[in-house]
């Protein structure tokens, strides 16, 4: 008797999660609210921009496009960072609380498939929100100023961040028995990650010798907000800014000044923007893989830490990935410009 067909099958957990998550009015209500909120943010940024123009600043259509894009991207990354762990932190602990975990483990599903299914199943709704927001982003194209390449990069960064922060929640869920505790711990971990990157970068100048040095870019590699800042400002044109003066495409939002350290450098030839998002994406991918590997051990009911063949394969692949990253270091490793 051969039960297992050779055809690859859709992960059963993804099927179930999608079935249960998309049921009822709630998912559609949340989607509507989310899109309205995003539209409101776009409108707010547009108004802020118009206000700057009324105050006498020379405003080009490209500036409006960039400003809108930055605002929307920042808003979405904020959403992803704080929603992804909420969606995944109940994935494994919820099964334990619901008393369905034993039944799941008694099936021949491998831990890797359980985790993969849980991660994608839980994040599928978030991915849907991201895709649904694309038409709002397309408003940016009306104003111009943002290359399609940049938009694709922003999408890639958004997806990587979703996976990573979803994985943080999933690991906490596999580690802890209670969902409430898993959610709390994953938020603490995220806040620590954000604080430990942004705060040192902000105060770096106060403690550097001589005082007033700019922080090195590696300090903010793990901060997704800095990555958005570095990415969405790449079309920052020094020629335009030298001609029209510095234009703050974040429309004077106070939070933007917190994101600049480590990313924006003031040199003799004007500002230089470091593309830290490349390193951020590589670090996030590595972090996701490591947390995923850790979780495959945490979900096992027994012999958790016994080495398996899977571990050897993972170690080899991970080492190969690190080797590739080393070879491509010129692309992502950024030495701070000498001032």
């Amino acid at each position, binding site marked *: 008797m051969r039960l297992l067909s050779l055809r690859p099958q859709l992960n059963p957990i993804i099927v*179930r999660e999608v079935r249960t998550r998309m049921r009822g009015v709630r998912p559609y209500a949340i989607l509507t609210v989310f899109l309205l909120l995003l539209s409101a943010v776009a409108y707010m940024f547009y108004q802020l921009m118009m206000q700057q123009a009324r105050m006498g600043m020379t405003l080009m259509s490209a500036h409006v496009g960039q400003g809108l894009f930055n605002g929307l991207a920042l808003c979405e990354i904020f959403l992803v960072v704080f929603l992804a762990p909420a969606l995944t932190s109940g994935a494994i602990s919820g099964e334990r609380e619901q008393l369905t975990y034993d039944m799941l483990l008694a099936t021949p599903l491998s831990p890797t498939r359980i985790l993969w299914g849980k991660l994608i199943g839980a994040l599928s709704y978030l991915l849907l929100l991201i895709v649904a927001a694309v038409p709002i982003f397309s408003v940016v194209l009306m104003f111009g100023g943002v290359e399609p390449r940049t938009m694709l990069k922003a999408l890639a960064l958004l997806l990587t961040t979703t996976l990573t922060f979803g994985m943080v929640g999933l690991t906490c869920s596999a580690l802890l028995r209670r969902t409430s505790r898993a959610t709390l711990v994953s938020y603490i971990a995220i806040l620590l990650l954000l604080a430990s990157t942004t705060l040192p970068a902000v105060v770096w100048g106060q403690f550097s010798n001589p005082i007033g040095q700019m922080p090195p870019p590696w300090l903010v590699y793990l901060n997704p907000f800095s990555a958005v800042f570095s990415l969405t400002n790449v079309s920052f044109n020094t020629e335009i800014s030298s001609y029209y003066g510095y234009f703050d495409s974040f429309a004077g939002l106070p939070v933007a000044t917190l994101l600049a350290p480590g990313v924006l450098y003031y040199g003799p030839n004007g500002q230089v923007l470091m593309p830290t998002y490349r390193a951020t994406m590589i670090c996030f991918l590595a972090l996701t893989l490591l947390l995923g590997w850790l979780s495959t051990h945490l979900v096992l009911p*027994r012999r958790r830490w016994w080495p398996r063949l899977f571990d050897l394969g993972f170690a080899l692949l991970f080492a190969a990935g690190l080797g590739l990253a080393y070879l491509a270091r010129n692309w992502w490793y950024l030495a701070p410009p000498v001032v």
Partner: protein
Amino acid sequence: MTAAIETINLTRRYDRMVALDQLNLTVGTGNIYGFIGPNGAGKTTTLRLLAGLLEPSSGEVRLMGQPLRLGRGDTQRLVGYMPDFFGVYDDLRVWEYLDFFARCYGLDAARRRTTVNTLLDLVDLGHKRDAFVQTLSRGMQQRLCLAHALVHDPPVLLLDEPASGLDPRARVELRELLRTLRDMGKTVLLSSHILSELAEVCTEIGIIDSGKMVVSGPVDAVQRQLQGTARLRIRLLRERERERAVALLQAQLEAPDEAAVQISSVRLDHSDPMHLLVELAQPDEEQQTRLLAFLMGQQLPISEFKVQSENLEELFLRLTTQLPAVS
């Protein structure tokens, strides 16, 4: 015939506490084995070990003659496991619930459809196909959970407390279902602390206490083996004959002659004016025939004469309460 389930010196410790101590259990193919014990006796631990959800501290498990290799899908396909506290996924329909587990076992689309339909008919939930799982009654959820354990058509079923929390009607239905499963050739190991239902449906029982098997074997053999005294229930045709019988037996009790039986007590059954209960000194069939011959010789109109077996509850209480004194 190979044993469907076999454990060899199976031991499981939780830190210093020994939950299961050198368990040797053999269940033949096609049997329904009832595993009885008080709470914390090691029933669930045993079932989880058999389902491959726990690692034995020492000892071995064999299913259908093959050693249970942990972390391998092929042994997990041999057993269907229903935990004692099971949950259901909210917002999932009954057929989707079974479809999910069928997918977990890698069944293709056509087989999934037929399996889900067959199982819904088997557990009599066909009319609830599109209902949400959380709206089902406890008995229905229990049956659905049992059906989930059958999606991959395993030869061995492990049911942890399948009858707990069920009303009498649902319990009868469950019993019917277990009989159907036995007819399908499945080997079932079920645990319970509600004993009365096990006697009727099980072919074999084992009593476990503090991680040790106290007694195991076919139901009647276990009962016979454990009968300390032979209690006989005698029914006479008329009430006044009962008094004569009591007087005769009392005389026999006080002054036993060599040829007759050795009686240890005679009691009236107060629930029925025609009955009396006689306890023999030894559980011996020869003694029983001699007693019957003696009563017949006295011209007593006996309409019923039978060994009253100690029911499982009494047996269980006696065994599990005596044990600490013995050890």
